[in-house]
Each structure stands twice: as structure tokens, then as C-alpha cells.
């Protein structure tokens, strides 16, 4: 049994008005404890609706959401408890900051949860800040004096501080520079390794998903298109582009190489792995062509092409 299961979930926006729109239909998924799941889909595919259903901000039109085996809407008055178990970080979460100091803002969630003991609260806040990669010196600053990336990490810390069993992040890297993006992804990965919690990451960036997710959920027009381990998902390059998505750029490079007649694997989606595959291919290539006088410069230029592909 998974930590979260959904059965035939359906959600409709603007029910009973001329603007009625089915946002989700027939979504049944099962998420295991400790999974790191990437959620992808083009704009309007129902990703954001799905994550808001999972923590009880929206109520499904029909279908069930089970958290640890019990229906979260069994007692509608207790729905707040579900939000402490399933922490949701919204898109652009920095707009939710409101307190005088970062410290107080991070405390908002745990205080709502009912943690009164001062020492415990302090410990929780400092751990959460550390997970999010916030320096101690930032805690006493006003959240409005931080940089964009810092604000976002402060907001993420505010959700982590509720100590949720499942952490959902809706496009946590949108609008950040490459370094800010890398830091957030690294922090999320470290957080999940240390606490063993379940993480769902919604993203438009295939590179981000390829880097961190074990399994990928592909949404299309409110339905589940694919739900499988990352490697298998990126094998379906054609289908992905049909529904307005694509494979990571590095995978694209290897698909292209294969197309040109090179004998390489195509289930490549991270840079580290790509390096190994490329080197392996080149050494085999050198061995078979038997050109001892071949200048080594050509090898390195081939390697750069692959890397240049990802850097774009």
C-alpha cells in the first residue's frame, strides 16, 4: 500500500457555470513511501490541480484520495491535519512571506500545527532553515530584504518546518538563475536523503526532473499519460513531443547520434551518465577504426558537443 493513493480522481473547475472545465479525469496513482517523483505535463495538463487535491486544498468532484490508507475527506473538518502531513510549496512561494523576520515566518507552519514548546520550535526552525540552505545570519533578517533565491528557500523552509511526510513542490526553480536552480534541487535531494520523506516535484524542466526523480508522472489533458521509472519515460521521446513535452537535451543529443549511425545507448538523461557512455563509445570507436595517427583533439571536441547540448 502506498503512502498516497488516488482512485479515479475527477475535478471540475467552475461547476455549473458556462466556464465549466474538467481539469482532471480518472486519475488513479499510487505513491510509495520514500519515492522521489517528478510530475511533468504541458500548461493546463492538470499538474497543479492534482497537487492541490493531494493536500486537500481542492475537493475532488468524485474519486478518493487515500493518505496512509484513509480517505482524507472522511472528516472534512479535520482537513487541516492533512495539510501538515502533505506539505505543498506553491509556485513562486516567496509571495507568501509576511512576517518581520525569516525566523518568525518559518515558525508560522509549526505554530499552526500546535507546537508550543519553545526549544522544540527553535530546533525545528533551525533544522528546516539548514535543509533549505539558509544561513543562520539570515534568520533575523526581514524576508523582504533577501535575494530572490533566498526568499524562495525561506518559503520552502516554511513548509519543511511543518515536518510533512510528503513534500510537494510546484515548480520550485521557475524564474531562478542556473546557480539558484542547482542549489534548490541539491537541497531538496539532500532533504529527501536525510529524512526519507516522499517528494513530488512538478517541473517544466526535463533536465531538473532527469537529475533528481526516480519515477516520473506524465500528465496530459487531465489524465495520466505515463507513470514509470525515469529511464523508461525518456524512451518515449516521440510520444512526449506529441503532447508538448520533450526529452532532456542530453538525451536528444544521443538520439541524434544514433540517428547518424553511431552505436550508442539512448537511455541517457544525466550528464554524468552521458560522459561515461560517450567515453565508452569513443574508445570502442578508436579500437575498431584502427587509426593510431588520429589526432586526439577530435575526441575532446566530440565530448564538448554533447556537453554543449545540455548547457543551452
Amino acid at each position, binding site marked *: 500500500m502506498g503512502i498516497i493513493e488516488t482512485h479515479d480522481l475527477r475535478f471540475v473547475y467552475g461547476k455549473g457555470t458556462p466556464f465549466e472545465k474538467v481539469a482532471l479525469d480518472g486519475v488513479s496513482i499510487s505513491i510509495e513511501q520514500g519515492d522521489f517523483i517528478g510530475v511533468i505535463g504541458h500548461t493546463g495538463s492538470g499538474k497543479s490541480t492534482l497537487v*492541490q487535491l493531494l*493536500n486537500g*486544498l481542492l475537493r475532488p468532484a468524485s474519486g478518493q484520495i487515500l493518505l496512509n490508507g484513509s480517505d482524507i475527506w472522511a472528516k472534512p473538518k479535520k482537513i*487541516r491535519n492533512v*495539510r*501538515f502531513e502533505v*506539505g*505543498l*510549496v*506553491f509556485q513562486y*512561494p516567496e*509571495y*507568501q*512571506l*509576511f512576517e518581520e523576520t525569516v525566523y518568525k515566518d518559518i515558525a*508560522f*507552519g509549526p505554530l*499552526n*500545527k500546535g507546537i508550543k514548546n519553545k526549544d522544540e520550535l527553535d530546533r525545528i526552525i533551525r533544522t528546516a532553515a539548514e535543509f533549505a540552505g539558509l544561513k543562520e545570519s539570515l534568520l533575523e533578517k526581514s524576508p*523582504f530584504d533577501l535575494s530572490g533565491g533566498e526568499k524562495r528557500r525561506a518559503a520552502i523552509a*516554511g*513548509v519543511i518546518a*511543518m515536518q510533512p511526510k510528503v513534500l510537494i513542490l510546484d515548480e520550485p526553480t521557475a524564474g531562478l538563475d542556473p546557480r539558484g536552480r542547482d542549489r534548490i534541487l541539491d537541497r531538496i535531494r539532500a532533504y529527501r536523503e536525510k529524512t526519507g520523506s516522499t517528494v513530488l516535484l512538478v517541473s517544466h524542466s526535463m533536465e531538473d526532473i532527469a537529475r533528481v526523480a526516480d519515477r516520473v508522472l506524465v500528465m496530459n489533458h487531465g489524465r495520466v499519460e505515463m507513470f514509470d521509472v525515469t529511464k523508461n519515460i525518456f524512451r518515449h521521446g516521440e510520444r512526449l513531443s506529441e503532447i508538448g513535452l520533450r526529452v532532456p537535451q542530453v538525451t536528444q543529443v544521443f538520439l541524434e547520434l544514433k540517428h547518424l549511425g553511431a552505436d550508442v545507448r539512448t537511455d541517457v538523461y544525466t550528464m554524468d551518465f552521458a560522459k561515461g557512455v560517450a567515453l565508452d563509445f569513443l574508445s570502442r570507436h578508436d579500437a575498431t577504426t584502427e587509426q593510431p595517427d588520429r589526432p586526439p583533439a577530435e575526441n575532446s571536441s566530440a565530448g564538448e558537443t554533447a556537453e554543449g547540448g545540455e548547457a543551452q
Partner: protein
Amino acid sequence: MISDITIGQFMPGRSFIHKLDPRMKIILMTVIIVFIFLAKNLFSMGAMVGLVILTVILSRVPLRMYFKGLKAIWFLVFFTALLNMLYIRGEHIVFQYRSLTIYEEALWQSGFVAVRLVLIVLISSMLTYTTSPTDLTAAIERLLAPLKLFRVPVHELAMMMTIALRFIPTLLEETEKIMNAQKARGADLESGGIIKRAKALIPILIPLFISSFRRAFELATAMDCRCYTGGKGRTRLNVLKYRFRDVFAFLLMGGICEGILYLNTLAPSLVR
């Protein structure tokens, strides 16, 4: 829900009322409101009710929308009618119980007040339902233009109104987003006494204020970038023009006004 608020909501359409010049619509609406107050007996008030219902039907906006607008003032109508009924004195007593006396005149008065309020809300929501905010402010700007002689910044006022109307839906959406974000952090907005509830609004109001200021600065910069310098020398993309149907509506209204005044003389006034 927040999305139930219908102030300034425009329902696009192609009805006769939609096509009227917005300036004419504002003028005619003002005239109708004046005559709602001039109608003093059942004949003339009946005619006004008929006129308003007719325009509501002509506007082809779903009746549901009008009911939504009325729902918001239901309490106000009831309360003013009640006060009128209890406090107005007259000659003919209808009902007496200890110190509570209700006169026939008071009953008429409160009935008329209620009907007037409902009619005013109907006719003014018809104006906003059938006129786009841009048209509305353009019309107000033109109608108030004579005030420029007295150094009233008419253009600036109209621009402020346009911007305010334009940002109502944006702000509602933003409020909903922030509310969700705080709810996701366990904010409890639904329970507790009045003080607790007021306190629970702080995490929503502060981010909302901050983002409104941010938006305002961004908008100002964007307007600067397009060389906006106020109303001087500024021309319009769509110049408002009176057409045959506007003249027709105007003349028709004139006739109706005559009729109302005549109906007023047929029977004694029921209200002051």
C-alpha cells in the same frame, strides 16, 4: 466563494443595449434613476418597474446575474424598509400594539423605498454588465470633460478608474492564491472568534499589499516606457460616435419621461 463577486463584471453581447453609445447609456441611466424618485403613485411607479424590466430583458444578460447583484443588497433593502415602516408617522393607523404604531403612509413609503432600491441596483448593474470597463471610463471622461475648465484632472481620474477596474479580477486571483499558500501552511481561516479571525487575515493582507505595490511600480514603469505623459494631446483608438439608435433611445426616453409626469397627475401621491 471569492469568485462570486460580480462588481464591474462585463458580459459581452450584441444586444441593442450593448450597442448603445456608453455616454448615452450613462445619461439615460441617470435620467431613469431621477424618474425612479419622481414616480409618486402606483401608475407612474408601475411604469418605471415595467421600463426597468424591459431594459433588463433587452440587455439579454442572464437573469441569474441580476439576481446575484440583488443578493448582495437584500439585507439593506429589508432594513431600510423596516425602519421606514416603524418610524414614519401619518394619519391612518393600520396596526397598533402597545407603543408600536404602524401607519398606512409608512407602509406605502417603505414599499416604495424597497422598490426604488431594487430598481436602482438593477439599472446600474445593467450598465456595468453591458458596457466594457474601457468604454465606461472613456464615456465618463467625455461626459466630465467640461470640468477641465475648472482644472479638474478629468483624464487622470478616468485613467485611475480604468486601472482600478482592470485590477479587480487580478487582485481577486492573487488573494485566492495567497490564501491557498497560507492554508497549505496550516492557516486556519474558518474558525475562532472575531479577533482570532481578524488576526488570521494578517498573513493574507501583508503579502497582498506588498504585491499590489510591486504591481503598481511595474505598471508605472511600463506606462513610462510607452511614453505616457497624461491626457494632453492623447487621441483615442475608438472615437465614440452617436448613431441613429442613440438618438432613437434618447427621444424614446424623452417620451417616457413625459408619460411618467402625466401618470403622476392621474392619482394623488402616495409618498412624499
